[in-house]
């Protein structure tokens, strides 16, 4: 469908925009002289909707600088290709008119196409340069800058100015959304809304990682960082997400939906902000955003707790944006791993990996596809880890794919102590990019030096060591399993001899194994992701009777019902088709049957069963 749209877009572009007077757009630049006198167009938090009134140029120098700026900008403006100019104008029109369909097309295909064509290695023109095309519409410029910085972060290397400015821009955007008088009359496609939140968190994460690399900073950067320690602070990021949730009353909304309230009641509950889809979806995506931020900061229980009203099934709103869907399951699964709830994690990964396999054919739009595939790969690694720690026979399909990809590590992981490097490798590959909440002490040069001399452990190493301690505790389990599988009852001393271990140690290892086979898992009626009951996850069970070990193994009987039913229905379908198809025409003319007889001679036997009345009569 997007193919079709692309064509329409391309075909009609010239005709559609005939009526937009490009000359007028460029010509008005001259009128904007007043705005550009000595002041750069404001991009700071406060002057969102105020247009500076006529500023008189007082000093000649200021005028000169302004004129120089104008010339630079005009040059930059002239170098923008016409296609891009038209696109920007069209985009702006669509945003002004709240034409959701047009915005979606422009956002999803137009922007990406033009990036590929003109700006694959450079930045898009700055917002100030294209400002005249959109009549200095500040709202649109904020949105434009959002896209501009997203491009910089993904394709190019952002420098410290870019990082600071992108933060300011995000603040402006959220300020506009949250602190205007009443809800704003803007409509944006859901994909974009998710991308805003996603990108915001990504830039935060990127900044935190960059911030901890103290040694490579220039003096100027050090100074800027020392002064600006509110920029990209954890509290402000969390503040944004929580504010969006509170403004849109999304939690109350979800609860009301679950209780089956009517639309009027819901509208009353959520207030004027919550009824608008823009705020509702932003609130919803902020919940997922909080899940992600808490996981990055290492607080896994809180991450699952904020999701307590969101149901993990195919009907939830987050499935409407694929990237959001995949991200949610990834973080939920990862949190379960750190909470040692491996069966829950496996269940989450299996469902999302199946989903990705099914929808792969529909989503080949380049940038999203790559991202989703990368996340899917990491989830296969996490699935392999979980399976090694808590073997279950849930989904052979996924397990086979995981084996293809990580077969080497999987074999190593089931070998106990030697497998620990394999666990480490997969964990580091697949875990989220953890961040630390606090910046290095840039304000204080002494402390900073101490920090450089003796840097603290990186968050990822910390979490890795915690995870490995859990793994190490379960190291004796696979060997024990393989021995216990062979017996129904066994003396403890004998088992100790087989394992070449001290009996007491072995008994302790068996207790570990028993505990490993019991874990908390969500059951059908449980609400919320933190709930659960203890279930048994292993098919091998044992009990120690003073010194005798009794073993019982559960097996799964052969499953034939599904296969049987499917094939029966298939046979029925074939039968129905044959029965209802028209019979071949009766051959009335006898002489004509002679050559007809010769032809079907080989399949004669088969033909005899079907009533070819004509031949028989002859």
């Amino acid at each position, binding site marked *: 469908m997007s193919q079709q749209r692309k064509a329409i877009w391309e075909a009609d572009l010239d005709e559609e925009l005939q009526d937009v007077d490009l000359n007028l757009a460029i010509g008005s630049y001259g009128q904007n002289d007043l705005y550009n006198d000595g002041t750069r167009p404001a991009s700071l938090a406060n002057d969102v909707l105020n247009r500076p009134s006529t500023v008189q140029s007082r000093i000649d120098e200021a005028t000169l600088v302004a004129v120089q700026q104008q010339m630079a900008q005009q040059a930059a403006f002239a170098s923008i290709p016409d296609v891009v100019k038209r696109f920007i104008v069209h985009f702006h029109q669509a945003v002004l008119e709240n034409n959701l369909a047009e915005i979606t097309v422009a956002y999803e295909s137009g922007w990406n196409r033009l990036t590929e064509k003109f700006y694959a290695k450079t930045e898009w023109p700055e917002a100030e340069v294209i400002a005249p095309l959109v009549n200095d519409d500040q709202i649109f410029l904020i949105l434009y800058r959002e896209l501009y910085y997203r491009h910089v972060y993904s394709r190019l290397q952002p420098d410290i100015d870019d990082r600071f400015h992108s933060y300011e821009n995000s603040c402006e955007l959220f300020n506009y959304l949250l602190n205007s008088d009443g809800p704003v009359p803007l409509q944006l496609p859901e994909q974009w809304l998710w991308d805003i939140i996603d990108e915001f968190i990504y830039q935060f994460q990127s900044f935190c990682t960059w911030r901890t690399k103290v040694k490579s900073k220039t003096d100027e950067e050090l100074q800027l960082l020392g002064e600006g320690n509110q920029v990209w602070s*954890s*509290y402000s990021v*969390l503040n944004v997400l*929580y504010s969006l949730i*509170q403004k849109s009353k999304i939690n109350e909304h979800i609860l009301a939906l679950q209780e089956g309230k009517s639309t009027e009641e819901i509208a009353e509950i959520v207030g004027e902000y919550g009824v608008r889809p823009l705020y509702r979806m932003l609130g919803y995506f902020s919940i997922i955003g909080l899940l992600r931020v808490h996981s990055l*900061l*290492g*607080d*896994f*229980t*809180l991450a699952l*707790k904020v999701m307590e009203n969101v149901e993990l099934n195919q009907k939830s709103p987050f499935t409407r944006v694929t990237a959001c869907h995949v991200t949610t399951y990834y973080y939920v699964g990862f949190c379960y791993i*750190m*909470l040692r709830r491996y069966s829950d994690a496996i269940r989450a990964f299996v469902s999302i990996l199946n989903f990705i396999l099914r929808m792969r054919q529909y989503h080949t739009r380049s940038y999203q596809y790559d991202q989703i595939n990368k996340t899917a790969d990491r989830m296969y690694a996490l699935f392999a880890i979980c399976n090694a720690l808590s073997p279950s026979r849930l989904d052979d399909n996924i397990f086979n794919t995981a084996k293809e990809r990580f077969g080497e590590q999987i074999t190593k992981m089931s070998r106990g102590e030697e497998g620990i490097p394999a666990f480490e490798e997969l964990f580091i590959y697949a875990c989220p990019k953890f961040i*630390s*909440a*606090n910046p290095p*002490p840039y304000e204080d040069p002494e402390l900073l030096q101490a920090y450089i001399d003796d840097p*603290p452990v990186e*968050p990822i190493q*910390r*979490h890795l060591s*915690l995870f490995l*301690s*859990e793994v190490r*505790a379960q190291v004796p389990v696979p060997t024990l399993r393989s021995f216990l599988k062979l017996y129904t009852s066994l003396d403890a001393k004998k088992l100790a001899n087989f394992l070449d271990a001290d009996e*007491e*140690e072995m008994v*302790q*290892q*068996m207790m570990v194994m*028993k*505990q490993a086979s*019991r874990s*908390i898992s969500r059951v059908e009626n*449980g609400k*919320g992701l*933190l*709930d*659960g*009951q*203890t279930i*048994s996850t292993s098919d091998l*069970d*044992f*009990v*120690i*009777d*003073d010194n005798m070990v*009794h*073993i*019982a193994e*559960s*097996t*799964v*009987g*052969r499953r*034939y*019902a599904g296969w049987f039913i499917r094939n029966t229905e298939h046979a*029925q379908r074939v039968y129905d088709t044959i029965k209802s198809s028209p019979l071949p025409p009766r051959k009335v003319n006898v002489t004509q049957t002679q050559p007809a007889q010769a032809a079907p001679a080989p399949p004669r036997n088969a033909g005899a069963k079907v009533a070819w009345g004509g031949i028989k009569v002859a």
Partner: protein
Amino acid sequence: MVSASEWAAPPTRTELIENLVSGVDRYNPNNVGILEDYLYHQIRSQEYDCLANLAILKLYQFNPDLYNPDVVINILIKALTAYPFPDFNLCISLLDERPFPANPDEPDPLPSLLPVLTSLYNLLQQCRFPAFWALYRSDKAESLRDNYTVECVGFEDSVREVVIRAVTPAFKRIGTDRLSTYLDLSGDDLTAYIEKLGWSLDAESGVATLPLNPDNQIVSTVVQENIQLPQLTKIIAHTQTVA
């Protein structure tokens, strides 16, 4: 075993704490006092509330100047007794990189005690109970014992509960010698403890019998397929339509 919903919301939690833990106020540094008081309440009355303690650690994560090593050590001690829940590791996840020394006069006891606590936890993870008691009673843990666990009411009993939680599913009958090494009790203390648990003790052969529970009764099961009638409706209905 305690179900997860109790772990997430213990019945001993008051409404005030519940609002703090579930709402946005948990980020307010002024509320750290309330949560710390709640922690001391837990210590004194042998209760435990994991999420509230994690909230304290989160506040410390964002406001390093609030950092109070005694509180952290107490939280970790409490988390030790929650095994097999992964609380101890969750707490350590939230302990960010070394916080900047606010007070050079009072030395920070955490860095020296943390390895001891971690080893104790690892021993519990690996169910090495005799080694646990040995380490706990040794000199290395002396500072821990004298300053912290002595304040925590029923710490040793809580650890014994952890041991029992590990022993119950795995054993049908267990020798008293073995049990005494696990529990660090002997003679009359042991007998009294076993009776309190409700297990029956056979004094002559020195074997304690555990009550039957879902975990230590093993049955070899064959998971049979359960074909439901609705699955077959289509096939059966078809036979009706075919004349």
